[in-house]
């Protein structure tokens, strides 16, 4: 370690501990520390820190505040949607229970500032107090005065207090119409691949060598870095898949140093992980179970979407197919597709000059009920359906969110629907009833 953090007013030991916990964030913590100044000195009234997810914004703030033992309140705007909760938390953290209890039932900003002023006249700040707001972008959804008031809290309460806002959204998207006290902006850049490698390698397992773990991280980044740079997510993926990586070594088949063989073993596995656990289609627990099952069955690991084909009644499947066709085919082509003895269909018959994109790019179009039924009867063919249950099946498809009922502003209008399933899904459904849907789709003629 060369460049240690240095700052008068703080103990070297504490600064040392800070530095150890913040690899690759030396520059940012140094800038923050120099802005904060010595504990008793004033800091800028509000500081806005932005940067991508898991770029260490909260981490740096917490480590600094904790290790340097600075008075602070940390809150997440997720939990403090209402101002009242926020006021309570701040007073509680900075002044204790009695102070928080002084707030009236549905406290306003005015009450908060009054209680704050009263408390800080009783115990004047000997050091800067910090209020850290995580996920500050949510403040924009709160009461319109909350954000501007927090930004100039120092002026409003006349205390040595600094408000730190953390967000992954740039400040430009926060500024109210009539302006406000502008916070000091600080950017936390994303970690480079090398930095991610360095940070992740620190989590190494004690029973394996540092090089071994580091080569594992290298492979992991090779697979995921082009898609995901989120340190937290990568760390999670690393932990989940490490045992699989170690397997050949543990079984004595491969030596720790044989990176190439290890890579061949783990890479396909990680790619599968990208399609499943990374997408949250399976939970971490399920993924671990699947890894174990795989050893026995050597079956293919598929995403949950592939597993969960909802079992639908026979006619419901045709209804869904009809709905899909109605959603993606132009109505004027229905005759050609569904009239008996239509002869050969040529796409050029329908082509209009201004059709620039296919319907599968634009998404499903709404259709009325009678069109759905017309298509349904023609695709279901001679396998005739009892009309009565058709309507209840439609409504259960809506309940299952496979069909969406489009709200009709016009009261006179009959209800319209849209099909809400993907192409893959409908193809799978069609296969189970031996219906070749692609032949009936205008886009694929």
């Amino acid at each position: 370690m060369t460049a240690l953090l240095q700052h008068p007013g703080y103990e070297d030991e504490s600064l040392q501990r800070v530095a150890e916990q913040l690899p690759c964030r030396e520059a940012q913590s140094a800038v923050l520390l120099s802005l904060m100044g010595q504990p008793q000195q004033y800091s800028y009234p509000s500081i806005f820190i932005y940067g991508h997810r898991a770029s260490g914004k909260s981490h740096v703030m917490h480590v600094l505040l904790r290790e340097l033992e600075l008075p602070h309140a940390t809150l997440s705007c997720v939990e403090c949607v209402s101002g009242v909760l926020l006021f309570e938390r701040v007073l509680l953290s900075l002044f204790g229970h009695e102070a928080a209890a002084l707030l009236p039932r549905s406290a306003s900003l005015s009450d908060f500032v009054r209680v704050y002023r009263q408390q800080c006249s009783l115990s004047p700040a000997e050091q800067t107090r910090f209020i850290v707001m995580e996920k500050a972008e949510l403040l924009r959804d709160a009461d319109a005065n909350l954000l501007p008031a927090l930004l100039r809290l120092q002026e409003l309460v006349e205390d040595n207090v600094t408000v730190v806002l953390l967000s992954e959204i740039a400040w430009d998207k926060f500024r109210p119409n009539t302006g406000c006290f502008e916070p000091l902006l600080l950017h936390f850049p994303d970690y480079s691949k090398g930095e991610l490698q360095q940070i992740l390698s620190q989590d190494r397992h004690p029973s394996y060598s540092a090089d071994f773990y580091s080569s594992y991280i290298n492979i992991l980044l090779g697979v995921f870095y082009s898609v995901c740079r989120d340190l937290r997510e990568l760390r999670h993926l690393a932990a989940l898949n490490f045992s699989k990586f170690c397997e050949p070594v543990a079984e004595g088949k491969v030596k720790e140093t044989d990176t190439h063989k290890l890579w061949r073993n783990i890479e396909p596995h990680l790619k599968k992980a990208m399609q499943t656990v990374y997408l949250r289609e399976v939970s971490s627990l399920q993924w671990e179970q699947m890894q174990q099952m795989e050893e026995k069955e050597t079956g293919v690991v598929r995403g949950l979407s592939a597993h969960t084909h909802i079992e639908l009644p026979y006619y419901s499947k045709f209804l869904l197919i009809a709905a899909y066709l109605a959603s993606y085919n132009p109505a004027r082509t229905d005759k050609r597709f569904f009239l008996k003895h239509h002869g050969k269909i040529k796409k050029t018959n329908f082509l209009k000059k201004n059709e620039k994109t296919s319907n599968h790019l634009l998404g499903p179009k709404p259709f009325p009920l009678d069109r759905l039924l017309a298509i349904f009867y023609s695709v279901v063919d001679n396998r005739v359906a009892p009309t009565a249950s058709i309507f209840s099946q439609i409504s259960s498809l809506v309940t299952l969110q496979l069909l969406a009922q489009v709200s009709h502003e016009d009261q006179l209008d009959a209800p319209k629907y849209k099909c809400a399933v993907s192409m893959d899904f409908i193809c799978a459904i069609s296969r189970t009833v031996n219906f070749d849907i692609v032949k009936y789709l205008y886009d694929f003629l």
Partner: protein
Amino acid sequence: MSKRTAKDAHLPVGECVTQVQDILRQRLCHQRLPDKPEGVESQHRHLLELLKRTAIHGESNSVLIVGPRGAGKTMLLKCVLRDLLEDKEAQKSLLQVHLNGLLQTDDRIALKEITRQLHLENVVGDKVFGSFAENLGFLLEALKKGDRSSSRPVLFILDEFDLFAHHKNQTLLYNLFDVSQSAQAPIAVVGITCRLDVLELLEKRVKSRFSHRQIHLLSSLTFTQYLERVRTQLSLPDGFPDSRFAQDWNDGVKTLCGDKSVEEVLQRHYNSSKDVRSLHMLLMLCLSRVSVAKPAIKPADLLEASRLCFADAKANMLHGLSILELCLIIAMKHLNDVYEGEPFNHQMVHNEFKKFLQRKSNSMYNFEQPVILKAFEHLQQLELIRPVDGSSAKTQREYQLMRLMLDHSQIMEALQKYPQCPTDVKQWAMSAFG
């Protein structure tokens, strides 16, 4: 450090730097009142005169202080109050009520706050009033002095004045202005606002009761004055414990302001905003770079501070996107070019991306659709793309119409700065059509 033979107190450098930080942070962070505000002498005189008439002669009045953010409106008022209260008589009789539109968000809260600041909570007790006017009248009556012939003058200060105009029926404003026009009790109403069009927000009956006195703080600073202000804001006062250090520091600041590169940077700031507050932010960033090892502000510090102030946030965020996300942005750019800014959905973007992949032999970017959708949604979370208004929440995620919140040049610039951007991706971005 050169050896000094100072006659007066000579402090260690560490001590001096701490003192410098203390003093300048009071100015730049704490917004401490200046001993004498610069460049607003006439406004100061005007306001002081007005408030004196209320405080000493018991005349009522109303006035608005209008100026852009950070122009020194609040500071002006506070300086005037400080000077006003040097007068013994004023100090004895004048009562102050400070309200802020950010805090007192409706008239009920405002009235409670007025009662509290006038220390009349006990006098009011559980009394119930028929109207706002009655309540306010009661408060003012309660302030009458022992001889009962005259009331004590009250100064009402309404910061963020424009926000009070949004209160229901503008009751508070109506009543305050009404009292200030009648001889009921001597009050002065001072509104502070950054809205130049503030009078248009007032209802007719409110407006007609306002004196129409306005004090404007429109910055007409020349660049030379601006430079001078930089110097004074950074200079140490006479009372600094180590006068030699102070002398050196102040000389250093003078040299700094004379530097060509510094002047250029300051010119840029001057062009974008002349207000003192944004200058303070710039200078604070400089000050934070002063340490025992480097007990002075150098031109390089100002350059670095300026770089931070002008940092392009969007470019910063684009730098941290994954290559997949960057590719999606490029696909959106092409769609924007082809369809002249019409909104797009995920399917279209994916399709555009696929067209790019098909032209390549290797398949390092062949991701499953859900992985791409996740990347797409991340871009939405970052607000780099935004759903078109009114595009129904019922639409499937893939088909929701979106707009790109970046323009052509921002994307191209981001691409240049993107670390290790693959050449084929760069070429794709630069090709005229997807």
